[in-house]
């Protein structure tokens, strides 16, 4: 469904930066109903890749095709139509919501922009969305700052779903949340995939989270995908030394043996 072919992207001449934050020759595919995890450390270019995929950032080389159409060749009406298919969820939900809009207003906004339905059908759709992401309908009248972080992220997800997209790009959607809230949001994403057949590009620095969620994993380092494959294959039999290092460094609670110096970093 989504095809990223040899994409290279960067920012125009930023001073004092080597090739951090730049994507180099990335090739990936995402199929319908599939969650693909993209793992990498800060500054490896995963957010830039997300912006390229959603069309917010123009790649300097390569193409992104969504159902066969080059995303970055679209203009005007065609672009607006395409936008409905690919939506994004960001790391800090509070920053992505307008502080002045109530939850209902935020959820109606995309319907208004695309002139979908009348006020009654919009209201029904908002109720539907609130149900879908597991929010109480009474939450609708609140402002974002009156919600918990988990609720805010649910609102952000609901808004992204308002236009019935086929692909959801999630950029570190649980990083700002507590572990117990994180678990709920991850469950929600799994449910949405199963129920709506939604495809998802799940970007995270946390291999532990990704490996429990994703069907496939791509490991990114310095702008390149160093390794990608089915989750179990990557986590049990990594080929690339960086993947091995990541796996060894990722904390787990299955090894409650007292830690001694030297065993964590050089696990592989």
């Amino acid at each position, binding site marked *: 469904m989504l095809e990223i072919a040899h994409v290279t992207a960067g920012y125009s001449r930023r001073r004092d930066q080597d090739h951090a934050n730049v994507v180099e020759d990335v090739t990936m595919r995402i199929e319908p109903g599939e*969650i693909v995890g993209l793992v990498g*450390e*800060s500054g490896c270019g995963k957010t830039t890749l997300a912006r390229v995929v*959603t069309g*917010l950032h123009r790649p300097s080389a390569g193409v992104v095709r969504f159902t066969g159409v080059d995303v970055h060749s679209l203009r005007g009406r065609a672009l607006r139509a395409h*936008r409905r298919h690919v*939506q*994004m969820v*960001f*790391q*800090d939900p509070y*920053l*992505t919501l307008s502080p*002045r809009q109530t939850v209902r207003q935020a959820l109606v*906004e*995309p319907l208004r*922009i*695309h002139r979908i339905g009348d006020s009654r059908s919009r209201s029904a759709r908002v109720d539907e969305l609130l149900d879908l992401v*597991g*929010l*109480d309908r*009474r*939450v609708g009248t609140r402002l974002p700052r009156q919600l*918990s972080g988990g609720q805010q992220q649910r609102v*952000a997800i609901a*808004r*992204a779903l308002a236009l019935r997209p086929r692909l959801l790009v999630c950029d570190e959607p649980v990083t700002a949340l*507590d*572990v*117990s*809230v994180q*678990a*709920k949001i991850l*469950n929600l994403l*799994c449910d949405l995939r199963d129920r709506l057949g939604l495809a998802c590009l799940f970007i995270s*620095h*946390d*291999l*532990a*989270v990704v*490996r*429990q*969620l*994703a069907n496939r994993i791509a490991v990114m380092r310095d702008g390149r995908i160093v390794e990608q494959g089915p989750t179990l294959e990557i*986590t049990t039999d990594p080929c690339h030394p960086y993947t091995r290092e990541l796996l060894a*460094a*990722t*904390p*787990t*609670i*299955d*090894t*409650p043996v*007292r*830690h001694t*110096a*030297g*065993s*964590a*970093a050089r696990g592989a």
Partner: protein
Amino acid sequence: MNAGHRRRGIPARLRSTLVALPLLGFAIVGLLAPVLAPADPTANDLAASLLPPSAEHLLGTDQLGRDQLSRLLHGARISLAVTAAVLAISLTVGVVTGTIAGYLGGPVDRVISRVIDMAVSLPGMLVALAVIGVRGPGIENLVIAVSLWAWAPYARIARARVAGLRGSPHLDALRLLGAGPGRIIGRHLLPPALAPCLVYASTDVGAIVLGVATLSFLGLGIPPPDPEWGQLLIEGRPHLASAWWLAYPPGIAITAVVFASNLLGERLATGDERPSILRWVLPAGLRAPAPRRSPARPPTTVRPTATSATSATSATSGGDGTLLRVRDLSVSYPHRDGRRRVVADVCYEVPRGHILAVVGETGSGKTTSVLAPFGLLDPTALVIGSATLEAGTHRRQLVGLTPPQRRQINGRHVGVVFQDSLAALNPLRTIGAHVDEAVRNTGRGGRRATTRRVTEELLRLVGLPDPVGIAREFPHQLSGGMRQRAQLAIALAGEPELLVADEPTSALDVTVQAQLLDLLARLRDELGMAMIVVSHDLAVVTRLADTVAVMYAGRIVEAGPLTTMVENPVHPYTRGLLDAVPRPGTAPGTRFRTMPGRSGTGPDDADGCAFAPRCPIAVPECAQEQPTLLALAPGHRSACPRQSGNATLVVGAAPERDGA
């Protein structure tokens, strides 16, 4: 305008309104001047010239026998008219220009910004004087002259705000939803740009009133006979010595309006001033008296007096190897009318050479309960309870120490590593300067070269390559991992017995995190140092801790040896927390077991167990009585009365709600 609990009766919002009252009076008087004024402000009556205040002329008359009060009221009208006109023009021009520049960016922004910069860097008064100098006085020219420079700050503020929002995820999300530029600017950029401009306008009112009066005073503003305030003053000047009523009222009027405007602007811009952290270091005499405690919920323990502290000490100490012993520690902050506890009745101890991990979610009070014994909280915090440290050879009560006494403990016996390494280091000082200071504070320094040698040794100890070079670097020149090591070097300067690390690895990449955890483990082994590590991540502390304490809503709910806590937890919250942690080897797509509901907030919000509303094994009694920690095994305590080990957790299968 001090801390919230000083003037309890008046909420901050009301106080802002009070401050704005003179401005409101100014506006009303200005609007209603023709109605309010007892006489025609321009009607001469030479027979009644220079009369002192009387029942007929409340503020006397001037040299032409005009009623001074009427002239004053009409003066407000003129000031108000000019101010309103200038504000309307400059706000509109400024906000529109600034928003356009900020939204478009690129070359347009560069050109407009340049113009704004120049306009801001011109002296406003001079511009106004020059414009009036060539165009002549009069209300119209006055408005033009003042607007010419008054718009620029608004443009700058609006531009900065919009430019800041331009790259924000909020706008990205809107673009992805298909919103066009018109909708984005009109609905999502103009309103936030306008808000700070209005705050600035509250100060600007004063500046404009003052500017207009000054111009009139110089004979370049409103020409006579119109009664502008500055004009009134210059007309009264020859009679300064004899007719005081001509000199005081207009000056007081101007000062009052400008003062109110300045005060309001300062309040809106900075908010209510909080007491500073420095309060901790001021001599005790300069500190405010201890705020009263909440009458509603009196804390269960009292602040230890000198005697109770020593008696507690003698009862518990005795060289049992316990380095730090915390008993019934509660921390409260001022809240509406009273105080609100954020940490309640916390007890923990750290034996020498052991690592205690304190785990909990946001707002559970984990950091507060760990930093409280060392006086490293916000100054509005009230700490009660007992915390004793075996510092060197004798045991010291830490709660209630004076700042000089604290300096004997902090840095020498206890080192602290904070979460945000960039914020915890002074950006203007080199790493070496920080460590040097720490070394000198503990008395290990000497001559500059000696101190620096110790510093370099410390930097080497925490695994920083090239200590000589690193010492010369500024904090922002190092990566997060290196900065965290630098903080560690500072903390180790006094060869402390205890290291307190607040989320030491949270901001770091996993590979760097693993290295740092390695380092901490190594340091404990090599230096025999005890540690308290605060973390939100259970998985992280399994790499380090001997003992784990789990906090929920300001209380410790379970504490015990690491293995027990991970393999055999008895408190349902601990189990829930463990269930939420991703496990290796789980098939992709496996759902997490989750706890329903939201995190509890404060220890006193519920009568009973704070976790009861979310607890799968709760019984009605749970919501009534506050559970206490019960010992289950040596070192293992839990605050769940239903734990006995047989109660099985029923995991809700229904889709959970995160609603109200």
